[in-house]
């Protein structure tokens, strides 16, 4: 089997994004097929990388030819490989929906490629500062994508995102400065090996700084003020892309922070509390919304809270649940954002659109046999086994609220975008729905890597 250096997942799309303006000068029509080709190539790399991780359990790459922590290390474990595949393949599928659209800007496609590459970078890097740099590429690109509709709402949402994002990045830098001040290193596993030499308060402060910074991107309460505005202001396809790429990368960073970087018990407790707040507030706010996109955005916040609860249980089954919930959320939310471009109750009569939307909703509210169901099922089993009945009550309550507003949305909702849905968008939502059904029917193909990811993370590895 060919072995792919993980760096190609980042270097190739960067190179092709730099090349794109020249392609545009030669032929404007070639830009979209070109971008799709780049994303396809990256998806293939991601899948090859996943296969390599399955045979080696972890792939390291020492960049610039220096051993870590002198040089930057890329380290891909199971969870990184799963998310790299999810981000790249779904980014490609969502990009399909751009074909046949009048909007034809090379700059948009360039930013799309760059954000895909940098989200992938976050999940495969093994260096704290490198992760910060990729966070910034993701954030700056997302600001541009959100504002790309050029309406008042778009600029407002983007500006709010910029403000929170920059405050967050300042806090990430504070965290990096704290850790560097004590340990003089930036490599994840070197930090992990020596974090216990730091005093208790310093560890806690570093954890809080990094959590604040990452929490902006991962849509955690109380740092998610930008989410509804940014999603409402952006086009449906951008919202769809944001919910599959940057937010997944943010959750991955939280996993890294909790399990590898600063594995302190108070950190898990804090994450659990924040997760519960995020879940309850997100779902209750979603119940109030009339606009479909805003409702979906708040529902995203709720899902992020649920994922955070699952991660912070610090147990194998709960982590498997988190993996399923992440995949379900990436697939179903991008499907719903794409599918509800021109949604009203009348759309339900069109089976080509209603079918996939129905599947997406079922997966999100956790009906069998979709991945969302498996996620919630494993989470419930774990919570019950640990006797955490109060959390079960909260999760069930949130699920009921979710069911109520999704039912209302299916039968009464109205979309915010006046244009009608195109054929390529139907193709994209169909592909997403097929993936949801396949993962739901054959959960073992995700279950096995998820088990290994959990085992590796709980053992302190990548």
């Amino acid at each position, binding site marked *: 089997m060919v072995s792919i250096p993980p760096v190609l997942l980042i270097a190739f799309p960067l190179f092709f994004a730099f090349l794109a303006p020249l392609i545009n000068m030669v032929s404007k029509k070639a830009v979209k097929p070109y971008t799709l080709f780049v994303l396809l190539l990256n998806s293939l790399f991601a899948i090859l990388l996943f296969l390599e991780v399955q045979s080696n359990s972890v792939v390291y790459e020492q960049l610039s030819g220096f051993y870590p922590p002198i040089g930057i290390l890329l380290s891909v474990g199971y969870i990184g490989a799963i998310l790299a595949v999810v981000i790249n393949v779904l980014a490609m599928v969502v990009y399909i929906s751009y074909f046949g659209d009048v909007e034809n800007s090379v700059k948009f496609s360039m930013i799309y490629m760059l954000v895909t590459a940098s989200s992938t970078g976050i999940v495969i890097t093994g260096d704290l500062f490198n992760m910060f740099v990729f966070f910034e590429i993701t954030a700056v690109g997302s600001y541009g994508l959100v504002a790309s509709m050029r309406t*008042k709402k778009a*600029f407002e949402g983007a*500006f*709010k995102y910029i403000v929170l994002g920059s*405050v967050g*990045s*300042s806090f990430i*830098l504070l965290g990096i*400065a704290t850790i*560097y001040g004590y340990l003089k290193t930036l490599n994840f596993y070197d930090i992990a090996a020596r974090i216990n030499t730091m005093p208790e308060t310093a560890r806690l402060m570093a954890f809080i700084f990094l959590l604040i910074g990452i929490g902006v991107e991962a849509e955690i309460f109380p740092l998610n003020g930008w989410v509804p505005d940014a999603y409402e202001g952006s086009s449906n396809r951008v919202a769809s892309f944001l919910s599959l790429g940057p937010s997944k990368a943010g959750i991955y960073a939280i996993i890294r922070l909790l399990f590898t970087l600063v594995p302190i018990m108070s950190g898990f407790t804090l994450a659990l509390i924040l997760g519960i707040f995020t879940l309850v507030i997100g779902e209750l706010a979603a119940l109030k919304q009339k606009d479909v996109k805003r409702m979906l955005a708040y529902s995203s916040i709720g899902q992020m809270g649920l994922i955070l609860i699952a991660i912070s249980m610090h147990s194998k089954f709960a982590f498997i649940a988190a993996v399923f919930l992440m995949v379900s959320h990436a697939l179903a939310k991008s499907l719903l954002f794409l599918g509800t471009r021109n949604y009203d109750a009348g759309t339900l009569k069109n089976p080509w659109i209603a079918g996939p939307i129905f599947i997406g909703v079922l997966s999100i509210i956790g009906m069998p046999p979709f991945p969302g169901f498996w996620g919630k099922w494993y989470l419930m089993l774990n919570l019950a086994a640990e006797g955490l009945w109060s959390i079960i009550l909260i999760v069930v309550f949130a699920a009921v609220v979710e069911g109520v507003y999704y039912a209302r949305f299916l039968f009464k909702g109205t979309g915010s975008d006046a244009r009608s849905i195109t054929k390529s968008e139907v193709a994209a939502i169909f592909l997403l729905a097929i993936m949801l059904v396949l993962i739901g029917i054959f959960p073992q193909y995700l279950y096995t890597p998820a088990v290994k990811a959990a085992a590796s993370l709980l053992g302190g590895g990548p």
Partner: protein
Amino acid sequence: MTYELLQPVFVISMALIAIGLYGVMSKKNILKIILSIGIMDTGVNILIVAMGYIPGGTAPIENGNYPVYMDPVPQALVLTAIVIGVSVTALALAVAMGYYRKTGTLELDDEGVMKW
């Protein structure tokens, strides 16, 4: 040796961060918010550079006869952080221009600022 020498630097950088935070949270004018973000960035950058301070050290450029150099890593990190700050500021200004063209004002709506 501890951080005693650096204490004034820490106070200054934290003050800049706090001023920036205050500006971000209290101002409604987009340009003032962008300035506040810049102030905050500066505070953080000062802190990182201070992390690499070595008493009696000199700039880490080899000239053969000086024994003590500053820690070069924070300087390299700050170089990156500054460029990132510039990029974000530039993009924020572009968004501000777009907002101004659409609304004719640089003040955010009351509901637009703190709608959580």
